[in-house]
């Protein structure tokens, strides 16, 4: 069995029993103790012993697995990429303390010389893996006995733990029982499961919220926006105009002869007609417009695309034309029509939703008086309102 001599003989001062609290120049060895390489590997499966020339003497069992080959005798620069914590010999000028006066200089430990490099005992040092550039090991190094014995490093995977476990197919036995690696891996997996559940819960809640929202904002029969959704959208458009946003128009549609269909052919026919109407409105309005059913046979279009009275007129005529095409329900012909009243937001100097709707209403009334099946625009002076 091979051994690593852990220290020089205890200094003479007999008072110091444990070594704790002793000064930097007074660091007693474990009295008369030698540790086997196997023992050290059990404590630190990722240990690395370097000689004073920077050559690898021994490595722990897990580190050996990671390196994938026998590296004894190789210079450390061949196997590792020297990272932070190392300085070329004579370095550490950049370390805080070294530039800040003698007192702090004193507080720094003496650098350990390892081949062409120096490292500070007890401080973090980093070594990348030459063969796996994305994995960097974090460690700490301590001197072994006299200078001639070299140094002992203990390394860990740090944040690269999961990658390393996968890459090198590590198992429970590759970690010291004191290592928290297993807890970390366990936690990572448990948290991922918990997160998955939470994500699922959030998705389900979001779907339920969206469904509840749709239910509150749409007309159950036709799927068009309901009065509530219309008022909300109108309010936003009004506020938009007040803040310099685009003008818009409202077109109030009242079906003609719908009551007759309902009364003579029944509610099923009436519902059928309403579904046809909503389909026509959906098809004839443009993206950005909103079609709402606001009463039994009453609809309002919120026209938010660029407002052009000529285009609106043409659109209402197309809609009326399609409404007037007779449809057959259970073998019987249904005939309806529709009357429009349109008001433009630009017609009001002080825009108010109520007044705009009243203007559209008045225009609709004029369409009805004029014999139905037509479209009227609110007068410019808005006196009707």
């Amino acid at each position: 069995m091979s051994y690593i001599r852990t220290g020089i003989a205890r200094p003479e001062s007999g008072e110091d029993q444990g070594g704790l609290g002793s000064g930097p120049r007074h660091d007693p060895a474990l009295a008369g103790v030698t540790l086997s390489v196997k023992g050290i590997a059990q404590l630190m499966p990722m240990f690395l012993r370097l000689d004073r020339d920077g050559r690898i003497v021994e490595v722990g069992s897990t580190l050996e697995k990671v390196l994938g080959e026998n590296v004894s005798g190789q210079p450390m620069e061949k196997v590792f990429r020297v990272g932070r914590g190392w300085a070329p010999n004579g370095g550490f000028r950049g370390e805080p303390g070294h530039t800040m006066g003698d007192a702090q200089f004193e507080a720094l430990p003496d650098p350990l010389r390892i081949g062409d490099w120096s490292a500070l005992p007890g401080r973090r040092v980093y070594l990348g893996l030459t063969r796996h550039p994305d994995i960097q090991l974090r460690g700490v190094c301590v001197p072994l006995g006299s200078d001639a014995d070299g140094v002992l490093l203990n390394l860990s995977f740090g944040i690269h733990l999961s990658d390393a476990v996968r890459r090198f197919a590590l198992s429970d036995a590759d970690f010291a029982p004191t290592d928290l690696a297993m807890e970390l891996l366990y936690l990572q997996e448990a948290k991922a499961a918990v997160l998955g559940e939470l994500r699922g819960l959030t998705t389900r809640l979001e779907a339920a919220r969206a469904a509840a929202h749709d239910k509150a904002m749409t007309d159950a029969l036709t799927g068009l926006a309901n009065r509530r959704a219309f008022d909300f959208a109108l309010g936003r458009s009004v506020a938009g105009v007040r803040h310099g946003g685009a003008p818009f128009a409202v077109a109030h549609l009242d079906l003609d002869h719908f009551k007759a269909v309902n009364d003579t052919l029944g509610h099923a026919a009436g519902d059928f007609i309403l579904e046809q109407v909503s389909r026509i409105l959906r098809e004839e309005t443009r993206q950005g417009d909103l079609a709402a059913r606001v009463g039994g046979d009453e609809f309002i279009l919120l026209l938010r695309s660029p407002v052009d009275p000529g285009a609106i007129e043409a659109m209402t005529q197309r809609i009326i034309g399609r409404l007037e095409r007779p449809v057959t329900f259970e073998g019987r012909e249904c005939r309806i029509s529709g009357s429009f009243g349109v008001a433009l937001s630009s017609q009001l100097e002080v825009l108010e939703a109520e007044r705009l709707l009243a203007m559209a209403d008045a225009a609709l009334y004029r369409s009805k008086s004029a014999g139905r099946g037509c479209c009227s625009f609110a007068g410019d002076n808005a006196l009707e309102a």
Partner: protein
Amino acid sequence: MHGLINKSIQCFLRDSYGTALWEAVARETGLDTVGFEAMLHYDDAVTERMIGAAAALKNRPRAALLEDLGAYLASVEGLRRLLRFGGGDYWDFLRSLDELPGRSLMALVDLELPELDLREDGGGHFSLVVSGKVPGWGAVMAGLLRAMADDYGALAVIEWEDSGREERIDVTLLEARYTDGRSFELARPQREEAPA
């Protein structure tokens, strides 16, 4: 009761006995058939009613049903993996059992599992005293330990006893590595399993 436990029972009933049985249990218990959300909390009485309803519908003693639940839990891949983090072999796994509630708390601070008091009597004899808020955890643990013995490939005799005062499980480990058991890689499988 933590939703995770209730949802586990729901999944157990659904996966072991079919959707129809679960729906019948849900109706008996007064639950929506959608069931539980794993990250919410529910009244303890709901859990008890659900187990009672399932035992009655399957005409199976409550304890036997709970043992099956334990075995089922150990077969759910995500959970099996978490359990396997307990130790490299069944021996280590047994010895880490009293850390199990603590481990669960690391992942879910509000998950209340029963207290597990492990005694090692030498010669491969272990006894585990299970004390939970709800009686029956002993049966669940017995089922789980049996399934995990198979998973590790260990040969063990596991007996369970409810004296009324305490629920105790006696484990006699005859051989820790009797078969190869099921494989377990420390690294998380690359392809995530879809949540149940």
